[in-house]
């Protein structure tokens, strides 16, 4: 391989162009901001993971012996808030999307580089507020801030946590706004809408949700804070307010927020599967429009979180039907991925293993979502571990698998180095096994009736809980491993060529790592996306040389 690389040791790229702290903290380069985000979300991922491990440790035994009930309430609340708002929502868009959206469409940067940096600073401010709230006593409302618990009864730091998520929301809005404008206005000549990588389509759909959903969460949290701090009467039922209104407003954002997490992951998986099947994607337009329709349908299903909250049964029927409809575009994607692999020449590289994991786990998460969308079953399993297992299959099995797959796939582009492939495959396997061992037993537990959010449980549930806790420790190993070998590879990894996977896409046509303005000359696109029949594999390139 070394002979194939003609990069001089001191070639200038975005990482070595400038040095020093201020060259990072004041950068407007989308690639550097992506790395700032990578560092910060990794930090919060491990904080949230730490809470998760404490939760699983408490649930190892039926008695509440490790922590007290109040502490347990805080643990799962802060696990949820950190993981949702400080890891999953920013994960793929703010790291991989930030890095790749301009590269993939042939732009020099995002449309508003300073707003991009501002979005990271808002994230940091929000993160500090959240950390402060956690250190000084935490929050115990669950990540959902349901009223009247959050406004009247909780004695914890609801106001600070709520404002922290308010600020984090603006960080998310600015990322989405930047992407939409960039995708509309900054595409290279010839990069038509139907030539864009599906990763871009997925991010476009995600950004629309971020733009239209997040402000509703913002005003909802403001109203909660006003009610708690100044005793306004908006959600308080003792003076005629309606707690259900809070739930409607909250889920109007927080259901689509699930699609903020999963759509970018679907975009990543599409890129990986076409590359490692060496085939054009099957049904390009259907996958692109499926992303958009998931974004649109996602706004029409929120009340399926409230079937037992006391709303009208006729509304519940309508929301149940609409919730089913999300399965159609999701299934279109799954079928198109499998059709893309059909008769492809598949290689089992690390990113592809994550993509396989994604398809399997997302399908299970999605199918159990249909259980929960049907009124009869939902009444039975509401607020049980069945729900917990379901959304972890989507958020962790889906979104995080896609994120890790994407990190491996684009790591050579980001760092200019290869990660160790053997370790990569091992970690992917460990994550898959650990994940299933953690969360599959929770489906059964929930179906048997174990409620969520309790720190103790009847002894007959112990075996499945022990399995789940054991799985979570395996999962933790699977998450620490990539962090270790990614760090290792930055110094000792094999130097990556510009296109180590033989992948289509403009990001592979520039150097690894790219220069500050991405392309020496603005590329002109004359080909369809995923023209793998026209691109030689890395092996073919090696033979030719």
């Amino acid at each position, binding site marked *: 391989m070394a002979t194939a690389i003609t990069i001089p040791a001191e070639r200038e790229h975005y990482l070595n162009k400038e040095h020093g702290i201020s060259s990072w903290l004041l950068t407007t380069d989308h690639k550097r901001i992506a790395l700032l985000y990578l560092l910060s979300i990794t930090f919060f991922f491990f904080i949230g993971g730490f809470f998760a491990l404490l939760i699983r440790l408490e649930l190892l035994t039926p008695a509440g012996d490790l922590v007290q009930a109040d502490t347990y309430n805080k643990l799962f609340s802060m696990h949820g808030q950190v993981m949702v708002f400080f890891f999953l929502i920013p994960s793929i868009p703010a790291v991989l999307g930030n890095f790749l959206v301009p590269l993939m469409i042939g*732009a*020099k*940067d*995002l*449309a*508003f*580089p300073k*707003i991009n940096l501002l979005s990271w600073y808002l994230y940091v401010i929000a993160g500090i507020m959240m950390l402060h709230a956690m250190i000084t006593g935490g929050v115990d409302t669950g990540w959902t801030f349901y009223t009247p618990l959050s406004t009247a009864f909780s004695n914890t730091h609801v106001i600070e946590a709520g404002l922290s998520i308010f600020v984090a929301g603006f960080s998310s*809005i600015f990322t989405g*706004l*930047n992407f*939409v*404008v*960039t995708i*509309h*206005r*900054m595409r290279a000549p010839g990069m038509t809408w139907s030539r864009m990588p599906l990763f871009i389509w997925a991010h476009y759909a995600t950004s629309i949700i971020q*733009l*239209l*959903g*997040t*402000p*509703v969460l*913002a*005003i*909802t949290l*403001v*109203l909660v804070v*006003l*009610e708690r701090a*100044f*005793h*306004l*009467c*908006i959600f308080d039922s*003792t*003076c*005629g*307010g*309606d707690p259900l*209104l809070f739930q409607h*407003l909250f889920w109007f954002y927080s259901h689509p927020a699930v699609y903020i997490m999963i759509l970018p992951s679907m975009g990543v998986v599409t890129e990986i599967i076409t590359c490692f099947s060496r085939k054009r994607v099957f049904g390009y337009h259907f996958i692109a429009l499926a992303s958009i329709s998931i974004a649109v349908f996602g706004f029409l299903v929120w009340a399926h979180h409230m079937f037992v909250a006391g709303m009208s049964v006729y509304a519940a029927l309508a929301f149940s039907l609409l919730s089913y409809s999300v399965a159609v575009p999701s299934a279109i994607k799954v079928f198109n991925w499998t059709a893309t692999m059909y008769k492809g020449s598949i290689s089992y590289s690390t990113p592809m293993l994550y993509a396989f994991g994604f398809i399997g786990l997302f399908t299970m998460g999605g199918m159990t979502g249909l259980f929960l969308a049907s009124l009869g079953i939902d009444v039975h399993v509401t607020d049980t571990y069945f729900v917990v297992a379901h959304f972890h299959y989507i958020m962790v099995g889906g979104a995080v698998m896609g994120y890790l797959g994407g990190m491996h796939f684009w790591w050579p582009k980001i760092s200019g180095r290869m990660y160790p492939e053997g370790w990569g495959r091992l970690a992917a396997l460990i994550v898959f096994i650990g994940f299933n061992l953690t969360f599959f037993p929770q489906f059964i537990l929930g179906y048997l009736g174990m409620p969520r959010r309790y720190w103790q449980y009847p002894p007959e549930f112990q075996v499945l809980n022990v399995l789940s806790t054991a799985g979570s420790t395996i999962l933790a190993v699977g998450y620490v491993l990539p962090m270790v070998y990614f760090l290792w590879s930055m110094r000792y990894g094999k130097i990556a060529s510009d296109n180590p996977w033989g992948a289509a896409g403009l990001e592979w046509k520039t150097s690894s790592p790219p*220069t500050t*303005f991405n392309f*020496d000359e*603005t590329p002109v696109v004359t080909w369809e996306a995923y023209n793998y029949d026209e691109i030689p594999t890395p092996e073919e390139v090696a033979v030719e040389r």
Partner: protein
Amino acid sequence: MSDSPATMEHGHSPALRHHFADVEQQRNAASLGMWLFLATEIMFFGGMFCAYLIYRISYFNEFAAGSQSLQLKVGAANTVVLICSSLTVALGVRAAQMGKRRLLVVLLLLTMLFGLTFLGVKAYEWHREYEEHHVPGFGFDAKNLIEEHPKLGIDPQHAQVFYSLYFAMTGMHAIHMIIGVGLFIWLTFMAWRGEYGPEYYTPVENAGLYWHFVDIVWIYLFPLLYLIDRKPLG
């Protein structure tokens, strides 16, 4: 590298940022970005309008009585002030496009003057409502509403919902006005230095769009809060 002459089709404008191909692309991007931001603002206020709609249907009598306790003439005068400020900012954008620096500065100052007048009047109204014990959480008391509208069967608690929404909505609107005035202070300074002209007036245009949006929110808030069922009640 981006400054290489080959990529610069339209000459080198000092306002052109390195990652745009030309001034027009930059202007289009900024404009689309502002419109998208206003879309997020619509959703932000939309949450409160949604709450308003639901509670107004549920507690109509209390909303009507509460609405009539507000000072109609003061609110109407304030609406006129705000519409005037929209006019001056629109003229300001035109002045920037035509490169009339002094006129732009004057119009921006006028806009701020109107904006601050509105805020001052609003503060006066809030103070009066505080004195009437109509602020939820600060000794709220609906006694005078019940006395004034004996036939409506006013529930003092439900009246509190009206005033909660009133303060939340006008308060959020006022915060947006304050941000707008802050923007105009900066714009006036930049305009004074002659930064804007026919070549580059995007910040003026975008701040103007924002200001119009804030005005339009008030155009909805005024009838919804001040004009509920004014006539038939005695």
